[in-house]
């Protein structure tokens, strides 16, 4: 750990706080008409409509999800991640616990994986949630389209 952090921990904390505050202030002010990252702070009624903003703020993750099986099947962000105010019916977590979240639908698959290969520590290490190859090729036999239905 750098020595100055030991000497001035409060300074670092304040700098981080400022950076974070600045980020949210920028996001809220830079996109005044469209709901965006600032929605986490000022659009409580639409907390669970994640994609609307994340198409702009995290376009790659959003597009990967949209092209994934979960995207085609409309298993939306909140089903696995909860909603950001933490007041949803499942806990908000950017990296959900597979044993709690994935197992709700995929317990039989998890069981088969254990029987075949021994238990893997995380589903995500082999089945990346928002990335190819597993999801990018999902439903590749469908007609090509770059259409977004949202």
């Amino acid at each position, binding site marked *: 750990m750098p020595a100055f952090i030991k000497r001035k921990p409060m300074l670092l904390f304040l700098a981080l706080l400022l950076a974070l505050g600045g980020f949210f202030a920028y996001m809220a002010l830079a996109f005044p008409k469209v709901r965006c990252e600032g929605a986490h702070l000022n659009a409580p009624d639409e907390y669970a409509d994640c994609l609307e903003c994340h198409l702009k703020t995290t376009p790659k993750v959003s597009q990967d999800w949209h092209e994934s099986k979960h995207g*085609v099947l409309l298993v*939306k962000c*909140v*089903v696995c991640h909860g909603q950001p105010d933490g007041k949803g*019916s499942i806990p908000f977590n950017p990296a959900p616990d597979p044993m709690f979240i994935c197992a*709700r639908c995929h317990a039989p698959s998890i069981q088969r994986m254990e029987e075949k290969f021994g238990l893997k520590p995380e589903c995500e290490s082999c089945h990346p949630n928002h990335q190819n190859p597993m999801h990018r090729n999902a439903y*590749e036999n*469908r*007609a090509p389209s770059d259409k977004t*239905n949202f």
Partner: protein
Amino acid sequence: MTFSRREFLKNSAAAVALSAIGGPALAASGPQTAEKWVKGVCRYCGTGCGVLVGVKGDKAVEVRGDPNNHNAGLLCLKGSLLIPVIYAEDRITEPLIRRGGKKSPLEKVTWDEALEFAASRFREAIKSKGPDAVAYYGSGQALTEESYLANKIWKAGFRTNNVDGNPRLCMASAVAGYLTTFGKDEPMGTYNDFDSATCFFIIGSNTSEAHPILFERIAKRKQSSPEVKVIVADPRRTNTSRIADMHIFFKPGTDLALLNGMAHVILRDEMDNNRFHQRYVIFMDNEGKPKTFEEYKAFLADYTPAKVQEITGVPADTVEKAAKIFAESSASLSLWCMGINQRTRGVWANNLIHNLHLITGHIGKKGASPLSLTGQPNACGGVRDTGSLAHLLPAGRMVANEQHRKEMEKFWGVPEGTIQPKMGHHTVALFEAMAKGDVQAVFIHCTNPAHTLPHLNKHTKGLETAFVAMTECFMDAETVKYADVVFPAAFWCETEGVYGCTERRYALTEQAIKPMGNSRPVVQILMDFAQKAGVDPKLIPYKNAADIWEEWRTLSKGSPYDFYGITRERLKKASGIKWPCPTEDHPGTNLRYVRGEDPLVPKDHPNPISFYGRPDGKVVVYLRPHQPPFEPADADYPFVLTTGRVIDHWHTATMTGKVPELKKAYPSAYVEINPQDAAKLNIRNGDQVVLETKRDKMTFPARVTDTCMPGLVFCPFFDKNKLVNRLFHDATDAASREPEYKICSTKVYKQA
């Protein structure tokens, strides 16, 4: 107790295995550790997914997909987020009455007082105006035992056929379609056909949002076999079309012409199955007069692809291609839902889909079937099969048929002549009769008509005029505003009962937790109410729901709906069984009417298929001409308005509105409008847009998207603050009496 991951999986596997045999099991589930898992069926749509409810102490803490049911463990977002619905803050847990009429407040009272309050009004109504002064308005979400019991209480107890329900609003046209073509209701195929079909023809269904788990199965099938083709025909290009090879936009209300056009191409190019239709099919016109195959061909001469293009707007070569894919695939499966049923010619549209299967022989083999999707979890098993509608009696019997009435009178042990020969009021007529004072008291169970009826401004008068007793779980249901008595009903896994889904599968939801507060199972409420209202106690000798199931199972014995082999014990062990299932050792039926598959077809039957629904053993191809909708767009009202679901919400959102994630994903209704139309009207995303019809006008925020074809606008119907049905007319199908929710004409303009 904490579990390692390995221990968790072992327990999870044990839970799955034990749940399958009905025993208690242990499993860990992350933050909330369920102590046991109880088997059931999802509370929402007609897909009928199996669920396991995780219980800790006396609380339900988690819901998972049942790996042993057809959904193989998968759940959609609504099903996986069911728990908050049970513990919603506005659950009704005490009986409530309005002492001083509709405008007085609801007051908490004892069960005895509430039951007597309702029963006395029913007694008075019958005394002053006869038995037809009372009615029951039920639901495709009610348990089978509840619907069967209510049907018996009203038709044999009160002696009125005024028994109808919300299935009239959603699948009555599918029922009449199956009845007219095949002679008996309910499909011949099952979800197993999804795994063998090579052509999916989806018309008038947004399967992706209304039946997500079935959509997953279609997508999986297509992913595993590239030769599989998916055709989606819909005036909206919904998410369902993301896996489609072909999307057919047709002008709203022109589906009959499109289907006849496909039949024309199939016969013109000799892609029909001559051997099949010569053996099994007869042809009939609208009056029921027999016609020949040649006359059918001549009738279809009016539907050349060029003419169909004129009527429907579908390019002629698209009609040709769709017909060719459908006819030449090795197994074609048609799926349809409200887009076909909620039409003034819904029954005809159903017949025309069946026609395609009957002329090509895509029926009675794996993967080939016309399979109507249902919207509610128990419309098929609970209402269609038990005959809980104004014109039906249990197990395929009809009110108008004297022999059928006699059979039911004998079985129920009531004197001959007890059941009236006159049909009761269908839904729209029932609410008109309530407004006129002809029906003075109604018992509403498990549905929300003040939100879902068409032409709401007209039909809520019925609720304002008549005495309304209702069962309800949630205080924010619109109909509660009109209720004189509210009985708090036990919700979903707080009681036990059977659901029968789209594919003839009966599955038991077992009781996982106690009813909340002072709420009671509806079977109990109905029996207590009936006794107080003067129904002969001998008619209702049941201790619990299982006794009612036993009676209903016995009644089905020997009928075309035979499920005598589906005992309560079997239902506790298995994750659903498909009827016909006449004996306890029968595994259930996948291919109905097929020799060697359907136990009701003799093993030595001369033909491989026996359509035993009609006396002559034949099925009917109908010559149904194209007819426009009741209210097409015109110069004054140039747009067509249609309604439907979004994936996040279900029906009137009294349940999904309680789940924070679902509510906040779609907090309110909007109007979907095509960018071309939006540009002409200077409407941008988020603008407030007025929809004005001949009935009313309402304002919605605009969502500019190319989902709707030009000329069409769409509003979801879940939002109680935007009751879009106020804009609709109440014209119904002449045969099924199902209202046309899918099409009305409207003006669209930006709010000044």
